[in-house]
């Protein structure tokens, strides 16, 4: 079905109005050499709705998901609870079949929702201004580095080795077209080596990037390093887990200049890695250097409150090559999901989610490390994720867990190159509010039974 409705008779009427005899004549401007004749591409015949459903259900059925097996994977994407009401609201076609709200008077619904989203992000991060979303946490981090360099015109970005390795890779890709250099800050006990950081700061340092908590789930000493960065005139970029912000002081209170992160945990689901969303917040003074859309409040001629896209002169459709970023389409619907998620959970719900993650992850860590051969790789305080040093290769452990219908944690040994460290037999294990004690206990039981592999 092609969803078009012009009948053959209507097509004829329209062609007559245009002054042509056939549909083919509409395509005369395409040189014959590159005009396809009748052979359709792709060759596949159209499928009926029943056939399409069968085909896609078959593909979905070939996957095993977090609904089939309890899942202890994290590493940037987490199996958090998504309330049913959220799906119904973002499923309203008035939201999801609209375009970017260029025509404000016909788009007040999404514009007000984005204004609320921006507010939510500033409340969570403790910053003054947030943009209307970016693609994901990784590209948001890369955009933050570019933004910092626009602000202070310096050329070096110092990056903690404990940010997500994929974020580091995206940062390198984004900066490969610029004259900015990336320097990695090594770790001490799984977090930023602050003495090294302090000695690495110089007049070329545009920004310092850390992740809070970091890739290993560990809380960084974010506040302790802030004064060094400020005194050096560099900017402080912090990539955060928004769920953790229910529990830890917002980076805006301890010296961050740009706060970014992955918003998938806020109501977007796992989705095999996308779409989630990237969020970004900063001081109001930096807002003209920010990438992406911004929604501002204003009035109509009768003094009624309304919302519009604002400071568009930063953007590609006005400023072209001089724009703050090339971004156009962003992740508005996921930003709407984040807004509704935060509205539904509210102050008490979000605190509960964070508390459940914290308690359950620590319960799992305590119990697993009682099993001979299992240790915590690092001694530092952590949130909902931790690195386990195991007595066997993680690949083998995970295979046995799967035989017992459990999806185990992330194998860090295969990522040791990008992590730039020794991670033999190391597993990054995540526990969210969705994992019950029963599921955690089953994981522990199976690990116990694997003493001899």
């Amino acid at each position, binding site marked *: 079905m092609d969803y078009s409705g012009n009948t053959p008779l209507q097509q004829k009427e329209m062609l007559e109005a245009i002054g042509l005899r056939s549909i083919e004549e509409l395509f005369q401007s395409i040189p014959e050499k590159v005009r396809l004749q009748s052979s359709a591409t792709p060759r596949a015949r159209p499928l009926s709705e029943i056939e399409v459903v069968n085909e896609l259900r078959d593909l979905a059925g070939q996957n095993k998901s977090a609904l089939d097996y309890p899942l202890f994977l994290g590493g940037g994407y987490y199996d958090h609870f998504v309330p049913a009401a959220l799906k119904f609201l973002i499923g309203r076609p008035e939201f999801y079949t609209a375009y970017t709200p260029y025509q404000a008077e016909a788009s007040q619904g999404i514009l007000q929702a984005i204004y609320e989203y921006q507010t939510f992000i500033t*409340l969570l991060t403790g910053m003054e201004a947030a943009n209307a979303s970016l693609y994901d946490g990784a590209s948001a981090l890369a955009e933050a580095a570019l933004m910092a360099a626009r602000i202070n015109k310096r050329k070096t970005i110092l990056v903690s080795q404990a940010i997500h390795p994929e974020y580091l890779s995206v940062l390198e890709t984004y900066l490969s077209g610029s004259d900015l250099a990336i320097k990695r800050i090594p770790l001490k006990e799984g977090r930023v080596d602050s003495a090294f950081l302090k000695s690495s700061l110089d007049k070329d340092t545009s920004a310092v990037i850390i992740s809070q908590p970091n890739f290993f789930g560990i809380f960084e000493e974010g506040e302790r390093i802030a004064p060094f960065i400020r005194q050096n005139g560099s900017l402080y970029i912090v990539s955060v887990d928004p769920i953790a912000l229910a529990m830890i002081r917002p980076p805006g209170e301890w010296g961050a200049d740009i706060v970014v992160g992955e918003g998938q945990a806020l109501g977007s689901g796992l989705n095999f890695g996308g779409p989630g969303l990237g969020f970004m917040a900063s001081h109001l003074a930096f807002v003209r250097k920010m990438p992406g859309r911004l929604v501002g409040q204003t009035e109509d001629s009768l003094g009624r409150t309304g919302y519009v896209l604002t400071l568009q002169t930063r953007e590609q*459709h006005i400023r072209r090559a001089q724009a703050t970023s090339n971004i156009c389409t962003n992740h508005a619907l996921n930003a709407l999901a984040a807004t509704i998620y935060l509205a539904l959970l509210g102050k008490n719900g979000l605190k509960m989610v964070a508390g459940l993650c914290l308690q359950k992850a620590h319960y799992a860590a305590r119990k697993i490390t009682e099993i001979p051969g299992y240790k915590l790789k690092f001694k530092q305080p952590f949130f909902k994720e931790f690195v386990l040093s195991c007595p066997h290769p993680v690949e083998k452990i995970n295979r046995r867990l799967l035989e017992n219908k459990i999806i185990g944690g992330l194998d860090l040994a295969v990522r040791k190159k990008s992590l730039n460290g020794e991670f033999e037999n190391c597993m990054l294990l995540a526990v969210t509010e969705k994992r019950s004690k029963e599921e955690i206990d089953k994981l522990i039981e199976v690990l116990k039974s694997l003493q001899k592999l």
Partner: protein
Amino acid sequence: MSKLIFEKGARGRTGASLPELDVPLKDISGLIPPGLARKNLPLPELTEPEVVRHYTELSKLNFSVDTNFYPLGSCTMKYNPKINEELANLPGFTHLHPYQSGDLSQGALTLMYNLEKSLSEIVGMDGFTLQPAAGAHGELTGILIVRAFFKDKGEKRKKIIIPDSAHGTNPSSARLGGFEIVEVETDGFGGIDIGHLGKVMNEETACLMLTNPNTLGLFEKNILEISSIVHQAGGLLYGDGANLNALLGKSRFGDMGFDLVHLNLHKTFATPHGGGGPGVGPLGVKKELLAYRPLPVVEKKGSRFYFNYDLPKSIGKVRSFYGNFLVMIKAYAYILSLGGEGLRKVAENAVLNANYLRTELKDYYDLPYDEVCLHEVVFSGNRQKARGVRTLDIAKRLIDFGLHPPTVYFPLNVPEALMIEPTETETKETLDYFIETMKKIAHEAEVNPDVLRQAPHNAPVGRLDEAKAARELDLAWRAK
């Protein structure tokens, strides 16, 4: 306007039902470092019914494809089939973790592999990456591939040629990729000025970025000559496939000589725009560029699909994980539903609809390029401007009639531009209503221009003060 969510609710309410703690409680002060614990979380407190009513009310203040004709030029606001939404919501897709093993995600990998193959066939390229999240992201990916390709060959090419009529993302992506931009002029027929292209093209040029059909809705008639000029100078030809809707089953970028092309699944392949995203901006490349694609690439060994990370020439990653997978599902289902034949009909009806609007409205609005167009037609509001009515006024007046305005003031090479793209999913009856309304507005411009200058009259708010928004920045609500 509706109150903000922050002005609603009451202390102690919540809209989510969470499980009780079932493991022994440990004192938080022992788990979170001293000084790091948050004291105040200033979020609203509402019940689920309050939240549902609030956002349902907001949704009603929006125009959308499901409620209004939405002829936004260059955006391809076609109908978004409901079955695709349902399929993308299958739990076997939505609950997949990106790091789970290949054995547990064969269905997802198969889908990505098949979608890449279908897209390659549709536009005549040798392979795709589905990683870019949007059109501009696909452009950046393409530009970085161009950069890596020439670096590999040891050639120092610093410039990218872009027509003055291009989408704003083209020059900004090229600059983000580290290139200098050279503009090439448009000729009197809306195409690239071949003579000028020959002059600016040289051994410093990495590529020409070209939108085809261009932003005037016209096919680049000299495409083969353009391709040969670019390739003879050792450059690459980059395609902006935003307007692919006009070419489905009619002509292929690969056959025209393009070396890279990005598409927009959220335009041509009927995935919804979501009020500004998410989309997917897949990038197709010819054989010699396959090795530079972002990591990882989906490949097949025997009957098993897997992610290949072993591409030493890859530009790296342009985002985390593999792309906007749920959007890919919708596009794949759309391609299956239409088949090759259906896709060709899409182009035919899209182009027929655009030309019908062109002929019916050209006596009422200036038409700078009066020739058979493809998927969209660009009028100028110059005639109305002479009466003191601007294109913006025409756009705002359309809202009063339940019609979403076209794209305005773009492309830049048409003064007071009105860029109209009806798409194939609109019927003649809808087009006739739009035509009637546009004629009425043209008449109002003659006899009662004030009604246009003060439009909209029936929207939730009147014309909003954008200057005030920028001058007195208010980007977030604050407790009074």
